[in-house]
């Protein structure tokens, strides 16, 4: 089995043993060698003791999806040893800690034993070091086995421990320990190995949450309120970290306020209060938090308060699978809260888009005076992705929407908070404290007239609801357009997807094209849907809708909100909590097309027989 720059390494570890840092070092070193890497952290909802895995797909081409299958398994966890062993492909490699004897039920794989625990016991006195350096030793062995550029690995260690110089040498020594053992005992390199790649130099490796947090910084958010919940926690933490460094006034005080709230209700309440008062504000949460925020989302929709909510989706329902990925909050976010409510949703497809769409979300929210929800997910948010560099156009002007200052209030006609002056159904607002005698209004969740005064006149309330419907139509014109990628001008087969499934769907489309199935692809980036969505549907007879939930939530939305005939839309659903693989998407779609053909052929036969 010769595989150069095209294989999967999986690390099976015990949670809390320090493996994450060593595994990331491995992925980062390969990335710096100019290769494509797709790291996936498959972790438990636990701090110490449960099994955890880290999978790295190494590719030459610009691939960003998991491949599936394991070529090299580094089996460091006795608890999962049997199942880890079973996952290795035929002729693949098992690297294990040979300090203690292990059974080898498979004869079709190559076994490389390294007495890692014994080596570390001999080299270190401190029990913590004995544990931590085990991880570094196996990475060291891999540098020899895979023919990695050791200079690059050493530099990655130096960068990793920047400011903690004392840790650099011991880590490099541990790497060498593993590396030398491999050179001495195995034929290095293996047939499965790397060669320096030629990837673009400007690529970066970043998580979606970090990128979304930077989007908030660049959008000028000054108030963040949040409640800790996996997998969204790092959005708020990264925002605070970046803002602390970049938002300091001349007296050393902060031009930002970050509050860890007592719960998600308070978090979104603070954000609404701040946004009402003219600050750019956001919160980040995940499924259970979305449920709690429902009432306030309805208030913000109806009272027309603009803010941004980053929803990093995880496995549901209920507490569900907090450390696994899903796209199962589509319906609940589109219609969050009681009564007739609808919300603007954005669907980033990679971390670069997490940055861009989160920044855009603030402009859209203030332009439309409504909450905007950025629909990320655990795979996108917490895994490291290789993508193009983040870019900011310094000429860009933040769109603060229709806000009247004192001068405008003096110059303008009588102020009506909820009047449709411009015909786009977006009203004007004023901020508290603006004018001594003009522009004050009462924000409320109860039914109100154009002056924001309480009303129980049903017609007045209905008119306001109709204006909100028209405002949503305006939103459809302003949100980011769906991205269409055609493989054929004549094909009547289409595929629709959104969010993090992009990596797998794109690769699957290439594989399917090689198989002779040409699919035109449309990646949704927003709800409400722009006109291009219905147009794409009209041009295709059979459209596969790929989504990571059980109930085909996006398909329902496409039927009800874009008016696409249900019979055209074929669901391709995955909800096992793992990022999709292109192979799975390809198999599902090819099987569906073939079964259609056989149905069609059978119908042909039965017609002839008659």
């Amino acid at each position, binding site marked *: 089995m010769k595989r150069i720059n095209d294989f999967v390494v999986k690390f099976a570890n015990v949670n809390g043993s320090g493996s994450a840092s060593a595994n990331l070092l491995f992925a980062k070193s390969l990335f710096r060698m100019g290769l494509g890497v797709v790291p996936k952290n498959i972790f438990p909802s636990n701090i110490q003791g449960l099994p955890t895995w880290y999978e790295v797909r190494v590719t030459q081409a610009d691939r960003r999806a998991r491949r599936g299958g394991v070529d090299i398994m580094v089996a460091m966890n006795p608890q999962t040893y049997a199942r880890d062993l079973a996952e290795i492909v035929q002729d693949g490699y098992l690297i294990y800690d040979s300090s203690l004897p292990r059974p080898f039920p498979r004869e079709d794989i190559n076994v490389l034993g390294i007495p890692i625990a014994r080596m570390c016991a001999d080299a270190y006195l401190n029990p913590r070091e004995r544990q931590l350096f085990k991880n570094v030793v196996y990475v060291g062995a891999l540098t020899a086995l895979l023919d990695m550029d050791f200079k690059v690995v050493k530099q990655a260690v130096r960068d990793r421990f920047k400011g903690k110089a004392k840790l650099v040498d011991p880590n490099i020594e541990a790497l060498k320990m593993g590396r030398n053992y491999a050179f001495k005992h195995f034929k290095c390199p293996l047939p499965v190995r790397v060669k320096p790649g030629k990837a673009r130099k400007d690529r970066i490796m970043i998580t979606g949450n970090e990128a979304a947090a930077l989007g908030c910084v660049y959008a000028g958010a000054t108030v963040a309120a949040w409640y800790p919940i996996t997998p969204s926690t790092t959005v708020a933490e990264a925002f605070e970290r970046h803002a602390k460094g970049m938002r300091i006034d001349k007296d050393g005080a902060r031009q930002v306020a970050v509050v860890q709230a007592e719960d998600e209700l308070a978090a979104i309440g603070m954000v609404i209060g701040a946004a009402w*008062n003219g600050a750019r504000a956001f919160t980040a949460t995940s499924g259970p938090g979305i449920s709690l925020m429902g009432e306030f989302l309805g208030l913000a929709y109806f009272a027309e308060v603009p803010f941004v909510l980053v929803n990093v989706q995880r496995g549901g329902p209920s507490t569900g699978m907090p450390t696994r990925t899903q796209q199962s909050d589509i319906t609940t976010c589109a219609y969050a809260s009681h009564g007739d409510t609808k919300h603007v949703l954005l669907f980033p497809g990679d971390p670069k888009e997490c940055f861009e769409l989160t920044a855009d979300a603030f402009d859209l929210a203030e332009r439309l005076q409504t909450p905007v929800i950025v629909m990320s997910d655990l795979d996108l948010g917490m895994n490291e992705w290789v993508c193009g560099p983040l870019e900011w156009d310094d000429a860009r002007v933040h769109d603060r929407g229709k806000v009247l200052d004192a001068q405008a209030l003096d110059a303008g006609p009588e102020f009506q908070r909820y009047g449709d002056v411009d015909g786009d159904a977006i009203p004007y607002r004023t901020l508290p*404290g603006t004018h001594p005698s003009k522009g004050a209004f*009462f924000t409320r969740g109860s039914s109100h007239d154009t002056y924001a005064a309480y009303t129980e006149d049903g017609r007045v309330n209905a008119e306001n609801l109709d204006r909100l419907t028209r405002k949503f139509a305006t939103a459809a014109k302003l949100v980011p357009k769906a991205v269409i990628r055609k493989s054929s001008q004549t094909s009547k087969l289409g595929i629709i997807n959104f969010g993090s499934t992009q990596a797998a769907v794109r690769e699957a489309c290439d594989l399917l094209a090689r198989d002779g199935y040409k699919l035109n692809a449309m990646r949704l980036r927003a709800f409400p849907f722009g006109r291009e969505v219905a147009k794409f549907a009209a041009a295709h007879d059979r459209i596969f809708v790929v989504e990571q939930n059980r109930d085909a939530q996006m398909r329902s939305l496409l039927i009800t909100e874009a008016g696409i005939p249900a019979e055209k839309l074929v669901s391709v659903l995955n909800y096992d909590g793992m990022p999709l693989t292109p192979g799975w998407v390809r198999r599902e779609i090819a099987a569906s097309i073939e079964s259609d053909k056989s149905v069609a052929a059978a119908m042909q036969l039965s017609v002839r027989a008659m």
Partner: protein
Amino acid sequence: MTFMKKPKVRHPGLRKNELGLTRRDYEGSLSTLCAGCGHDSISAAIIEACFELDLPAHRLAKLSGIGCSSKTPTYFLNQSHGFNSVHGRMPSIATGANLANRDLIYLGVSGDGDTASIGLGQFCHAMRRRVNMIYIVENNGTYGLTKGQFSATSDRASKSKKGEANLFEAIDLCTLAIHLGAGFVARGFSGDKAGLVPLIKAAFHYKGFAFLDIVSPCVTFNDHAASTKSYDYVRAHNEAMDRLDLVPEREEIIAEPEEGKTVTVRMHDGSLMRLHKLDDSYDPRDSEAALTTLRKRYAKGQVVTGLLYIDDEDADLHTLLNTTAEPLNAVPMSDLCPGNAELAKINKSLR
């Protein structure tokens, strides 16, 4: 009935304050509460306090939750922006609003249902965060809008209008406030305007979380003989601990206070607050004593009013977060958006 506009008739002889405004300028829309509702007296006291303090109404934001009490911000300060939020969540709205603009005055109005039940959590956390605001609970011990259910401040064994006895212990909001870090804790009675207006005025001068629990009888559902929140009961059992005088910063102090009878507290804005003690043994700067007094007097069936506790530590949420002196909603985008050069550095760190 709030769409009914009050006629804008002005009597030329009405007294004007330093801003040239009359009391009428601090009024709101016509109240839609029941005739005789204690809440309307509190609205009148707020109007009086703001008038006397020469407050520019547009620099004040009035916030509330849901319930009879939460409707009242419509009935005062028409020139102020208002936010009638959702049930029990006014504290978070006020916290966020305050974070965005530290220069405005925040007046939260809530009720015993809104604060002591559905909103208890947010109430507690706003206090421990020292949000710079005035938080008024218009406390009538009952759910008025839903027609007379007990609230969490109803005293145990007190009876509803239908004659049912309340089975559960009452939550004493002043005790809670002292425990959780409110720096200014007072109790008033809507039927005692003379005592109430100075308390509200002092609260406006306080930097930090100023809490006022104002007993405010519900004339429709909780003003009967077996209620401990009725006008008659509170009048008969009211024990005032002190009387307040506010000496604005610009005024000279003429009379020397009587030794042992008066406590003087310098407020954040430089003005002085004079407490004339009606009970010599009481010192409102001592939180332990305040808690003990509240507990002992409550056991005797007394309703203690006045300024119960004051902590003159000069720190609010902004101090704790070390936020810039400029309101966050006014920091220019050029200061907030780091630009592409900074992003290039971040990209580099991600390679």
